[in-house]
């Protein structure tokens, strides 16, 4: 615990040079990881990261100082360092803490009750299931992670918020090899829960099997043809297309400085009328969820796009000053070494009304992206790219064969208008999102969707 007199002193020290807002962030995170390769534990690690950061704002200017030391002297030194960015005299006094917001962990089984033997047993089950899928599986890499992330925020507007965010994730990668060729498949579920995730949500054997299935399927797949065709993208991690092609461009980080194709588009049509999109940080136990964000504001459900109309951006405290837009509970950061900025939580296309089979049947020739890999975007131009982890070529509305090595590229603003089908059944999948405030856990999600036309890259030659 930290004495309230120290909090007061730090917040006021930070305001000494004319700042109008100051904030103290404290973090204490414990992480356990286990890596199993070829069925043997290769590595086990424990990390405890502890530190603090002090931020000062004056209008739209921001200064941040952080330290791994969290004693009174170190916190005051941070406050002084951040304040030194401004050259004025004190104008504001920090309010006494008057709002207490306490988020309690969603974990039913905390990680302190778990030993390495339990972690290893899971990895072993997943690995064995992957190997049992096929003789062509030559290697399996299983990574286990559990993490107890505790945050505390105090600010000069009298807010105190604490949150405790447990997270679990297992990533299994399978390698299939034959005739000097190698293909891989991976599956990596994650939740904002305690160890109970492995009984309530994650079937570890199925995780191993799914990874192996993709690797073996891709080993026997021809190269994907190259060209511009209709594409059906399946649910779950397929939602990465929304994440990259659109919502990065709705973050105050880019919109606040005029660097997004979606600037000035509130209440305008930015997507086809079948599109509804949401960012919801409140979903209990989900990978991207939190009770309070890293600026102490409550997590929210934000309706971003309604029937194709842009309804909201994702806005942090600094962004709200730049954009004159209310905060949306989107202030996030990897850890104390980053100042917070606007970020996503659990972001998804809401379920639509279309039939999942019909959209394949009526697509003609094109690609069915059953599993997506990662991607990236340039928010200024909206140019995005994604890897397809498991793809199938469709001819005359029928799946012809699996295809490997496909990439999808395009421009966000254009692709959103070309979505012509959204299915009924939505699910989500976890990822790590990298941006200005570091790498943070976010979910992406969608039902199965169809895009009428998109550039598909592959080395199977022109269509």
């Amino acid at each position, binding site marked *: 615990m930290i004495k309230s007199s120290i909090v007061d002193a730090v917040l006021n020290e930070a305001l000494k040079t004319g700042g109008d807002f100051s904030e103290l962030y404290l973090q204490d995170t414990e992480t356990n990881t286990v890596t199993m390769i070829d069925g043997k534990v290769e590595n086990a690690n424990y990390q405890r990261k502890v530190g603090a950061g002090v931020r000062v704002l004056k209008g739209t200017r921001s200064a941040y100082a952080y330290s791994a030391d969290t004693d009174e002297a170190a916190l005051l030194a941070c406050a002084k360092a951040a304040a*030194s960015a401004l050259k004025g005299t004190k104008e504001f006094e920090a309010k006494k803490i008057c709002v207490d917001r306490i988020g309690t962990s969603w974990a039913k089984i905390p990680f302190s009750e778990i030993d390495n033997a339990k972690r290893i047993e899971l990895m072993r089950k997943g690995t064995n299931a992957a190997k049992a899928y096929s003789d062509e599986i030559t290697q399996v890499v299983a990574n286990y992670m559990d993490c107890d992330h505790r945050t505390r925020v105090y600010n000069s507007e009298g807010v105190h918020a604490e949150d405790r965010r447990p997270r679990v994730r297992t990533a299994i990668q399978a390698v299939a090899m034959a005739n000097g060729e190698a293909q891989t498949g991976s599956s990596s579920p994650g939740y904002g829960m305690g160890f109970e995730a492995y009984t309530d949500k994650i079937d570890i054997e199925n995780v191993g099997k799914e990874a192996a299935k993709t690797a073996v399927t891709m080993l026997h797949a021809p190269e994907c043809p190259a060209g511009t065709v209709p594409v059906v993208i399946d649910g779950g991690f397929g939602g990465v297309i929304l994440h990259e092609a659109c919502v990065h461009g709705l973050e105050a980080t880019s919109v606040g400085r005029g660097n997004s194709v979606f600037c000035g588009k509130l209440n305008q049509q930015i997507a086809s009328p079948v599109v509804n999109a949401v960012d919801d940080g409140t979903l209990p136990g989900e990978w991207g969820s939190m009770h309070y964000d890293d600026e102490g504001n409550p997590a929210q459900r934000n309706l971003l796009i309604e029937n194709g109309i842009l309804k909201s951006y994702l806005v942090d405290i600094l962004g709200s000053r730049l954009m004159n837009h209310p905060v949306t509970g989107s202030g996030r950061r990897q850890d104390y070494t980053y100042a917070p900025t606007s970020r996503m939580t659990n972001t998804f296309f809401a379920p639509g009304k279309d039939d999942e089979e019909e959209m394949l049947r009526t697509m003609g020739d094109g690609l069915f992206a059953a599993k997506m890999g990662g991607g990236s975007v340039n928010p200024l131009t909206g140019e995005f790219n994604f890897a397809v982890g498991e793809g199938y070529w469709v001819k005359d509305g029928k799946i012809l064969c699996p295809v490997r090595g496909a990439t999808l590229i395009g421009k966000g603003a254009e692709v959103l208008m070309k979505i012509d089908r959204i299915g009924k059944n939505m699910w989500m999948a976890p990822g790590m999102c990298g941006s200005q405030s570091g790498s943070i856990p976010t979910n992406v999600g969608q039902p199965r969707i169809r895009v009428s036309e998109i550039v598909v890259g592959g080395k199977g030659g022109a269509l």
Partner: protein
Amino acid sequence: MMTYEQFKDACFRCALENGCESAEVYTASSDGFSVNVLNAEIIKYAVERSKGLNLRVLFDGKTGYAYTEVFEDPESLVAHAIDNAKAIENTDESPMQGACEYPEITKKPNPVVDLSEEEKIDLALAMERDTLAADARVNRMGYCSVDTGVIETHISNTLGLNADSTERVSYAVLAPILRDGEEEHESYSFKFGPEMTEYAGIIKESIENALMQFNASAVDSGEYRILLRNDAAGDLLSAFSSMFFAERVQKGLSLLGGKLGQPIASEAVTIVDDPFEADNPRAFDAEGVPSVLTSVVEKGVLKSYLYNLKSARKDGVASTSNAGRMGPAGAVTTAPSNFYIGKGEKSFDELRTALGNGLIITELSGLHAGLNPISGDFSLIAKGQLAENGEIVRSVDQITVAGNFLALMQGIEAVGSDLRFGPPMSGRIGCPSLLIGKLVVSGK
């Protein structure tokens, strides 16, 4: 709270008392300053101080790790490390480096680090001013920053190893946004080290790279001859560098397994890992192993993998001083030092002439997703220019290029003389421009 020295000694004592054969600490502390400006104002200003200690113990022949940033309760840290060692099932030996001598290296002085905060802020403001003045089409800055830092690393263990190093780092980043009609484009340029105060070169480069993106369109899908510019080629080499790590080979995660002594690239290709490279020299790696120069590929023939102590012991060879860590909290892995394709004879313009009809690729994106270091396959979004008879005809965007890294290496027709190094991340990768065979391009 204990001092760092007290804490370290207590960890060692506690580890040995609890049955560890040896114990090692890896400590990194950093002091940094960063300023980001926009419209002649500071928009971001950051001061950092961090210090963390990673304990590695050898217990019953197995290695366990534990990391902390709080120097209290050494018993608990040692208990975590021993617990993690007990979990290990891989029986490969994982030796620690003992006391040793280090080669003399000369690091270039970096006076930029010692500038006052005001001077660093003024430098960032001047960079913005000069970029805005350099071309009428520069509309605003997407990014403009000055970063400096001092990173002290200390490795010591109960076998008598004591290794210390101090890195004095600095870099300038600028990204002008150019506007012409309705189109806007941005391009990032970096400059590392003491020369960052002479930033005119990166202003020119970033503006040229942004201008190149205007009036671009896709080409028809098909096979094209490709000239990969040095920066794009370096990004690709960097993404595939883990293929050369012995630990990946030993685990069946690299297509280079069993290829030592065999040709894996065209004769034009030579690859070296050089820890002594003048702009970024180091005396030892992340395990305290004295630096050695390694010839990785000679005239296309694979000569050596990159080893740390553990992977070297398994293959019965000496470490190539390529132990790395993903930050101080991470376990020992493998990382290149200065890893680069040696330069060839031809200038970039001569390579363009030799290209004749084809595509010059100036930028590849999505490298974390659109390529697979295990299979060697890649399919990446690209930007560049279309060339006819060696002359640039127009700019190209919204295309992908796809191929296999090993096939690409074997198809290299010529290596340029324009060797360029990327930023010193976990390993610093260098590459000249490469005239490569055909790749499949997806576009219209």
